[in-house]
C-alpha cells in the first residue's frame, strides 16, 4: 500500500473490470436449475467484506471504529455460515436418478 494512491486506484480498477468479465462468463455457464444455489453462494462470498470488519475490530481497546468493526464481523458471519450452509442443503438435494428414499415431512 506504499504505492502512489492514484496508482493503487488504477490497479484496483483493472482488477475490477477483469473480474467483471470473468464473472460474466462464469455466471452464464451456471445451469438455470442451480440459480437458487448460485444466489446462496454469492451471498456467502459477498460477505468476504468481513475482511474489512476484522481490520476495524483488530486494534486493542474500545473505540467507535472497533465497535462498528465487531458489528460488521457478526453480520458478515451470519451470512457466511448461513449462506454456505443453506447452499449445502440445497445442493445435497440435487440427486441423480437413483433409488428414491421415502421422505417424511
Amino acid at each position, binding site marked *: 500500500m506504499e504505492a502512489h494512491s492514484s496508482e493503487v*486506484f488504477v490497479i484496483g480498477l483493472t482488477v475490477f473490470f477483469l473480474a467483471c468479465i470473468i464473472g460474466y462468463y*462464469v455466471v452464464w455457464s451456471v445451469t438455470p436449475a442451480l*440459480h*437458487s444455489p448460485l444466489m446462496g453462494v454469492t451471498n456467502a462470498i*459477498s460477505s468476504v467484506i468481513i475482511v474489512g*470488519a476484522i*481490520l476495524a475490530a483488530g486494534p486493542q481497546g474500545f473505540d467507535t471504529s472497533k465497535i462498528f468493526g465487531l458489528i460488521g*464481523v457478526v453480520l458478515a458471519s451470519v451470512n457466511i455460515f448461513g449462506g454456505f450452509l443453506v447452499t449445502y442443503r440445497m445442493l445435497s438435494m440435487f440427486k441423480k436418478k437413483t433409488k428414491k428414499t421415502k421422505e417424511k415431512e
Partner: protein
Amino acid sequence: MSSNIVAILYLISALLFIFALRGLSHPESSRMGNIFGIIGMIIAVFTTLMFKSVLSYYEIGAAILIGGAIGSFIALRIEMTALPQLVAAFHSLVGLAAVFVAAAAFYDPVAFSIGKVGSIKTASLVEMSIGTFIGAITFSGSVLAFGKLQGTISGKPIVFKFQHLINALIFLLIIILIILFVINQSPTIFWTIVIVSILLGFLVVIPIGGADMPVVVSMLNSYSGWAACGIGFTLSNNLLIITGALVGASGAILSYIMSKGMNRSIINVVLGGFGGEQDTSASKDNSDKIVKQGNAEDAAYIMKNADSVIIVPGYGMAVAQAQHALREMGDILKKEGIDVRYAIHPVAGRMPGHMNVLLAEANVPYEEVLELDEINHDFPMTEVSFVIGANDVTNPAAKTDESSPIFGMPILDVEKSQSVLFVKRSMATGYSGVDNELFYRDNTTMLFGDAKKMCEDIVKSLSA
C-alpha cells in the same frame, strides 16, 4: 506477514471463489464448488487475522461465533419454500455490514491506512461514500423485499404520484451530500448519507409487485456485490474488489434472465407498478364461457390412460407445499410406465431456480426437470399437461393478443398437448390480471382446490 504473502493468499481465496461459481455449471460438480467457496473464505479470514494490527482475537472470535451460530441456526431450520425471503434477509445483512465497515474506516482511517481523522484521502472518501450508499440501499431494499416475500407487508405494488421524480431528486441529494462529505469530512453528513440512502432503498422497492420479486431479489444480490466492491476500493483490497465484481455480475445476469423471462426490460420492472397479488376482479367478459370442472378421480383417470405427462409447477405449488405429494403422484405414474417430466418457466416462483430446489427437495431427479427451451417443443407430442399453481406462464395470449400486458412473454406451450389439467384454487387471474383463455378450452379440465390436497387425492385415486 509480508504484504506479498498476504496478496498471494488473497489471490488464492479469490480464485477459489471463482471455482465455487464455476462448479455450479452442473449439479455433480456443484457440491465441490461450495467446498471451494468455504475454503476460500477460511483462507481470507485467517490471512486477515494474521495482520500485525489485528490483536483482539477474543472479541473477533466471539463475534464470529455469535454470527456463525445465528446463521447456522437459521440456515438449518429454514423451510425450502421460505428460501426467497431468507436470501433477501441475508442480502440486507451484507448491505448493513458494508455500511458498518465504511463507518469504521471513516472513524479510524489509520487502521486501514487511508489517512488520518479529518484528513482522509479524497479518493478513499469518494469510494467510502459510494460503498455506504450502495450498502444502505441494499439493506433497506432487502428488508422491504423480505417483508413482501414473507407476507408481513402487502405484495401489492405501492404507487404514488411523482414517485420517480422523488426518487431522482433523492438520488441527486445523495450526490450533493457525497460532494459535501468529501469536502468537509463531517460525521453528520456521513450519517445523513446513510439515512437518505436507506430511505431511497425503501422507495425503490415499494412500487414493485410480489411476482416481480425474482428480479428484485436478483437485483439486490447484485447491489450487495457492488457494495463489497465499493468497500474493496476504499481499503485497496483486491480480494473484495474481485469478489464484489463476481457477485455483482452474477446478480445482474440473473436480473437480466428474469426480466427476459417476462419479456420486460429491467428498467420497466424497476420502475414497477406492474401487477399485484391475485385479488383482482374476476373475469368480466368471460363469465358466460363454460369451464369444464373435474375432480381428483377424473384427473387420475386421464393421466393413467396417457403415455406422457408434463408437470408445470408454479408459485402456487410452493405456497401449498405440494411438492412432496406431487412427486408421489409422479412416482405412481412412472410405475405405470408413463413418461413423466417437469417443465420449469424461468420466472416460476419467487426467486431464480425456486421450483428446481423445491422439486429437488421432494427427491425429483434433476434429469426429469427441464427448462423452457429444452422441453417446449415436446408439448405437441404430449398427452397430458398437469399445471399446478401456475397460470400466466401458460397463457397463450402472450403469443396471440398484442394488447395483453404479457404479450411477448415466452410461455410453456401446454395448449399444444392433447389435454390440460389445471390445479387452481379459484378462477382468479394470475398476477398480471390477465384472464387465461386456456381455462375455457374443450380439452382443459379445471381441478379446483388446494394443490397439496389435490395431489394427495389423485394419489389415492391412482393407487385405488
